[in-house]
């Protein structure tokens, strides 16, 4: 695969089709964990890690087990979510055993990640768009980075919003949505790059 193809996938997944701001995937953690900068960074990298690993496992499972057996229409959803749930569990156990520091940093976010639609969504996008293994991996890493970028931007704004004088009706969640609308509008500027 050529280098410029990789760049196209990366820029498309990070900016143009940002997972949060234009595909609407992973909104629950986006608004749930973006109140503080450190937790936003932790969540972002935890999602990127699990996203990459999930695509790494799901892609061959779909290609070499489900499709040859003709089960991809019936079992895709169940198998994908099963792989993700068991993978998250595995990561949690391994981190607990081998890296106490990382476990304390990411531990509380891991159970939340199973039900994060960004992970399952990425798996389905990779499968539905018939990406090759390398393309899928690049897509997964950049989708995770795009998610992290959006999360960190949001956390930065929300930390400032705490001090701002907002009408009482719009405090917290409503104003965050309107902020997200403006960010999403800004992402429109990248439309047409790829």
């Amino acid at each position, binding site marked *: 695969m050529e280098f410029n193809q990789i760049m196209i996938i990366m820029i498309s997944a990070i900016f143009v089709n940002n997972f949060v701001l234009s595909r609407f*995937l992973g909104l629950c953690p986006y608004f749930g964990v973006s109140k503080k900068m450190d937790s936003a960074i932790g969540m972002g990298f935890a999602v990127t890690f699990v996203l990459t690993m999930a695509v790494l496992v799901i892609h061959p499972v779909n290609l070499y087990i489900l499709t040859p057996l003709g089960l991809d229409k019936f079992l895709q959803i169940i198998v994908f979510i*099963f792989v993700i749930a068991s993978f998250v569990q595995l990561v949690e156990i391994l981190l607990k055993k081998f890296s106490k520091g990382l476990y304390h940093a990411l531990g509380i976010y891991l159970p939340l990640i199973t*039900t994060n639609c960004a992970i399952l*969504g990425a798996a389905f996008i990779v499968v539905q768009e018939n990406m090759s293994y390398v393309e899928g991996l690049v897509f997964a890493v950049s989708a995770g980075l795009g998610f992290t970028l959006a999360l960190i931007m949001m956390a930065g704004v929300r930390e400032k919003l705490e001090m701002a004088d907002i009408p009482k*009706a719009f405090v917290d*969640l409503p*104003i965050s949505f309107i902020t*997200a*609308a403006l960010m999403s*509008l800004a992402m429109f500027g990248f439309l047409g790059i790829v």
Partner: protein
Amino acid sequence: MSNKHSNWFEFVKGIAKENPVFIAALGLCPTLAVTTQTINGLAMGVAVIFVLFFANMFVSLLRKFIPSTVRIPAYIMIIASFVTLVSLFLQAFAPDINRALGIFIPLIVVNCVILGRAEAFASKNTVSKSLVDALGMGIGFTLALTLIGLIRELSGSATITLQFAGLGKIFNFGQPILDDPNIVNVTTLIQNPAVVMIMPPGGFLVMGILLGIFQNSQNRKAEREKKRKQELAKAAKAKANTQS
């Protein structure tokens, strides 16, 4: 605690008081992603009602048999089976809706409304209560999605699409479009629709404003409650004073 409430209460709470979208802010991804047309929001809502109904039923039936350590994977497996049913049904009978909803059909599996109800309600309550709860929550979710879809479609493309599997019509409120039997030209209410409303930013904006309206009404209700309590306390104090 929930045993005290009547079935009617469990049904109504999902629609207004504990609306999953506007009050609890759950299931946000499908809420914003599919509501570019009214019918998409409605179809998504109906799919969620179906899955929620059967997931709640089975979780509630099996609540004494599922060990609590593996309950989340077990719930997800139950939910995933019903989502597969919905997905296959839509692929067969409503391909255009299936295309419009895209990956958000399989993503019903990770919709927090369904897992949240299974965990918070169905795993602790009887089957009949869980079914009523599922219907109420599902209808609340559907109403919310339809409302957002209606606002976004009307302001973004000046139409209201109520067309499912070839049935129904598209109501047009913009510039009249002739020569299409599916389109009903109502009046020219909106000359230049704001296309941004059916794009991602419009979704965030509409949701933010609706959440603000709901938060405002909640704030007011809380204030009224507080005032009433203060008055009651004052009255009780005055009574005590006169007696002594």
